[in-house]
């Protein structure tokens, strides 16, 4: 099912990018958690009063009183969505379509290795990257929160929140992976694999910003990731997360099947 030689090569290829993203996330997570100060909330609320649409569009809402809802407002609306998404886009395209486009897929297929094995190996490398990034984020959040505000963070809720976030990113990764499998040309794969998640995020921003644009939320998969709902234990939020997970499984499976069946002009 998996070719370890190829998997190792791909993980080595992800390493540099993972370090960069981990560094960016470390910086933001540290700064933002340390900004938490119940008294500061008043100041932030005043920003919200001044420019509600702008603040809301990036998921920053008023009334964040607990540490976890503070984190949801300031991390899970933008930073923890955008950066792992960028990782999915960059890596998803590198794993299949780049080999086909450059012709180096010949090396992988002029060998007694099934196409399915190649596709599943590349998929595993992408999923591993997403997993590492999410686990790192969760670990970092707990560490920073515990050192700065001992006992303030609801650990169980944070883990649920990150599990839901993981499903969202697996879904985004699945979109990029499928695009990478369908196209033989990097530019089309990027157009679709990066275009869809980016457009969906813009829809999400619009839906957050105003009541009139609220209907847009039905046109973006980001709606399925309901951070506040997950923490509150709402069943609709759990269903949303499961929908993302199911969607991800379908996207990856379709990607593998498409890659196994397609003609390769390599």
């Amino acid at each position, binding site marked *: 099912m998996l070719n370890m030689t190829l998997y190792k090569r791909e993980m080595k290829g992800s390493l540099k990018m993972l370090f960069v993203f981990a560094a960016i996330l470390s910086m933001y997570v540290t700064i933002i958690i340390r900004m938490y100060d119940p008294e500061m909330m008043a100041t932030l609320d005043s920003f919200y009063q001044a420019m509600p649409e702008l603040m809301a569009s990036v998921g920053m809402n008023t009334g964040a009183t607990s540490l976890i809802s503070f984190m949801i407002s300031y991390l899970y609306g933008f930073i923890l969505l955008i950066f792992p998404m960028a990782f999915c886009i960059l890596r998803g395209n590198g794993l299949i379509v780049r080999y086909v486009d450059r*012709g180096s897929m010949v090396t*992988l297929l002029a*060998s*007694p290795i099934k196409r399915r094995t190649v596709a599943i190996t590349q998929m595993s490398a992408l999923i591993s990257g997403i997993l590492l990034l999410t686990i790192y984020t969760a670990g970092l959040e707990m560490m920073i929160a515990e050192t700065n505000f001992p006992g303030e963070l609801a650990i169980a809720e944070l883990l649920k929140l990150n599990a839901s976030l993981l499903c969202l990113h697996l879904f985004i990764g699945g979109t990029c992976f499928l695009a990478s499998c369908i196209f033989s040309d990097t530019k089309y794969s990027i157009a679709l694999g990066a275009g869809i998640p980016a457009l969906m995020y813009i829809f999400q921003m619009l839906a957050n910003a105003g009541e009139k644009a609220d209907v847009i939320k039905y046109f973006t998969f980001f709606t399925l990731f309901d951070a506040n709902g997950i923490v509150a234990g709402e069943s609709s939020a759990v269903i949303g997360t499961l929908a993302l997970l199911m969607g991800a499984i379908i996207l990856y499976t379709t990607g593998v099947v498409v890659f196994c069946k397609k003609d390769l002009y390599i």
Partner: protein
Amino acid sequence: MSVINVQNLTRDYGLGKGIFDVSIQVDKGEVFGFLGPNGAGKTTTIRHLMGFIKPRSGSARIDGMDCWKKRDEIQKKLGYIPGEISFFDDMTGKEFLKFVSDYRNLGKENRMQEMLERFELDLSGKIKKMSKGMKQKLGIVSAFMHDPAIFILDEPTSGLDPLMQNRFIEVIAEEKKKGKTILLSSHMFEEVERTCDRIGIIRSGKLVTVDSVETLRERHMHTYTVRLDSPHLAEDFARDFEGKCNGNFVTVAAKQSLETIFMNYYGGEENA
């Protein structure tokens, strides 16, 4: 039974592009030359044999196995040099060969070292920085190192200097002696002429002729015997024109370009 068996293979890309009703049989221990100009359909045929493209009509089989369905089985005993070499640019030559041998799960007992020595390839540099010829050598080594029984070689000597081209032809001759089956595509008549038993000529996607080298040579290579004034002059003449010297007589062959041979097949009605 033929080792490589292509039956009525057709793949129409539209606008006259593609391959049409191509049938090729290569027997065990035979070297088959697949000759044709650029864009004639050599690579398309080979892609079918490699299982990169699924046949729309007709079939491609190697060792009796369907090239699309049993690609991974076939690849165990197949060595392939692609027409357009593209490896992992980020690796050095050494890392690349290590990757390929691990990826294929080859043991320590392989022909890598032998081939490296024969082709005098230095593996230390990044593949990105390698010249066309060096990449070609790397392709040769990676196609030969698992000692396959069948070879599919798509313009294998392109980019090699004449010395290395000769060395490659020697290697092909040795493999043939060992009973290996080889399909070699080329656009150079001399190359296939020196190595192959039979030659198939493809043009515009159609197999124009399949013949033994002798037949094609007789038909298309005119030889002349000239008498010179002295054996000494004859020797010089033979050296300069690659002829055979016999006393005062020298026999030289006029080498025709591939295009000229095609013109013979098409009676000049189509422009090359």
